[in-house]
């Protein structure tokens, strides 16, 4: 009996280790590749371990490739998307949670339908609209386009959190003479701060990762985001592979780090939003 149990235990451990290895390997491989000299990348046997003596690669790429500009543009787009999404989502989330009104179902359905629209489909009409609004070739335009895709998700996640705030808290503030907007901003929002943080991270991610709009709605080199810059290197071997992988890693790590820092809240926010439907 006992030995069977240990067998099972060992197998389970092996499965967990394999799972983690599979999940981490591509990121690890990006690191190893970035730290391997070009000649060795094309050798018959691959280097399996990172060579940290070549760490200056990560400094060099900033001189060879406009990585700093790319990252700055991505950061602006991501931050703008995050701020605008949250600003737009708070009141509708509160409304969906607290009010019964005609058209509530339609609003909920509309928010869901936006999740089905591919960016690639809307990019042509958006291009025309942005042309009229003088938003083409601006980072503001990218923020506006991205927010249209994030704000429905953020609204839904915040609504889930506000559902969990007891109405008594609001009634107490109401008796103290606060207006409803005051109540939402100073009473309800602080109580859902962790979910707000999660929503912010999700919107930031979307802006950081977005590719289609950044590729089509912006044409200036100086406004290129990291996703577009990096996309130019996919499957191409004329730029040194180790430099490209170094840029890829520099682009990936902030997203992964942010996610890991906020992980507890993101997971709680995502699952609350999705499990409740």
């Amino acid at each position, binding site marked *: 009996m006992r030995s069977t149990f240990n067998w099972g235990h060992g197998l389970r451990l092996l499965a967990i280790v394999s799972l983690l290895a599979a*999940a981490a390997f591509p990121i690890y*491989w990006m690191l190893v590749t970035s730290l391997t000299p070009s000649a060795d990348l094309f050798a018959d046997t691959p280097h399996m371990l990172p060579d940290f003596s070549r760490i200056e690669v990560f400094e060099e790429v900033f001189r060879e490739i406009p990585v700093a500009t790319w990252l700055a543009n991505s950061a602006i787009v991501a931050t703008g998307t995050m701020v605008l999404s949250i600003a737009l989502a708070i009141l509708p989330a509160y409304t969906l949670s607290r009010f019964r009104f005609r058209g509530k179902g339609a609003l909920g359905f509309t928010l869901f339908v936006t999740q089905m629209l591919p960016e690639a*489909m809307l990019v042509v009409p958006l291009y025309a609209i942005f042309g009229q609004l003088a938003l083409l070739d601006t980072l503001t335009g990218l923020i506006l386009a991205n927010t249209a895709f994030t704000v429905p998700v953020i609204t839904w996640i915040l609504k889930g959190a506000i559902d969990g705030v007891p109405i008594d808290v609001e009634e107490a503030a109401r008796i103290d003479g606060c207006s409803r907007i005051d109540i939402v901003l100073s009473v309800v929002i602080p109580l859902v701060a962790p979910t707000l943080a999660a929503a912010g991270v999700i919107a930031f991610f979307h802006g950081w990762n977005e590719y289609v709009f950044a590729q089509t709605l912006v044409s200036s080199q100086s406004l290129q985001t990291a996703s577009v810059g990096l996309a130019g290197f996919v499957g191409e071997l004329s730029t040194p592979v180790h430099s490209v992988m170094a840029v890829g890693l520099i682009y990936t790590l902030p997203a992964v780090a942010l996610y890991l820092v906020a992980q507890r809240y993101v997971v709680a926010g995502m699952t609350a939003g999705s499990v409740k439907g």
Partner: protein
Amino acid sequence: MTESAPRNGRLEGSRWTPYIYIAPISLYLLLFQGYPLIQELMLSFTSTSLLSPQDSEYVGIRNYQDLIDASDFHATIVVTVVYTIACVVLSIGLGLAAALLLDRPFLGRGVARAAVTIPWAAPSVAVALIFTWMFNAQYGIFNHALRALGFASGHENWLDHPALALPAILLTTVWQIFPFASVVLLAALQGVSSELREAAVIDGADRLSVFKAVVWPTIQPSVALLSLFITIWSLRRFDLIWLMTQGGPIGATNTLVIELYRQGFVYRELGFAAAVGMIGLTIALVVTLVYFHISARAERAGGRR
């Protein structure tokens, strides 16, 4: 004291208050989603070139007819359906396996749970970059591994091989999205009653029976919802596929969204592209309505708590 509070404890307010609160988001979505969508729908009934969009010509349903008649388009639908179903099944299967493994306590579980979600946080463009390199015919680690294991050729050109490209894209996609499934299912597993589970074990049920009788009924609604989300995401996934294969070779990975983009930006046929988009959207809507229909029926039948 609370005489002004309406039923079910809601705060008082003018009947217009909710509409004022949802006005900004409604206008925003109308301008940046609704209006473009209507434009796109109208475009799908025209012949319009990207080069001179003002010379748009109304052609009725001809774009749709041409699509329905084209055997290439049938292949696109098949690829889309295969890709979507495989994404759903494989991501949820792997996600469930991961969730079950990470559900029971062990040393370092917190770290393991965090680590397993890393792929989901990686940007698609970066994922396309590293996987394209890993799939490289001569220097990719997958072929290195195949050679090390003694496979004869070990020089498979994964992304440029009609039979291997779709599996390679699937592997990449599943790697990226299974963590989402595992996170959602891990949360769902917290709802499994430990008393019921223990009772089943005392009754002598083996692991599989416990899973079927106790675990599955609890997580089933989450699995259904995940299927819906992953279906919708798979129908609209663009970056990964476009950057890795552009739908090729010979259409092996050509999903609807890739076809839409190619029609619009390579062949510059905006009307045709719009028609492809509308067909994709219809499929997504039908799947969603079927899902809501089934889950509403399950709820009425008391199958869902």
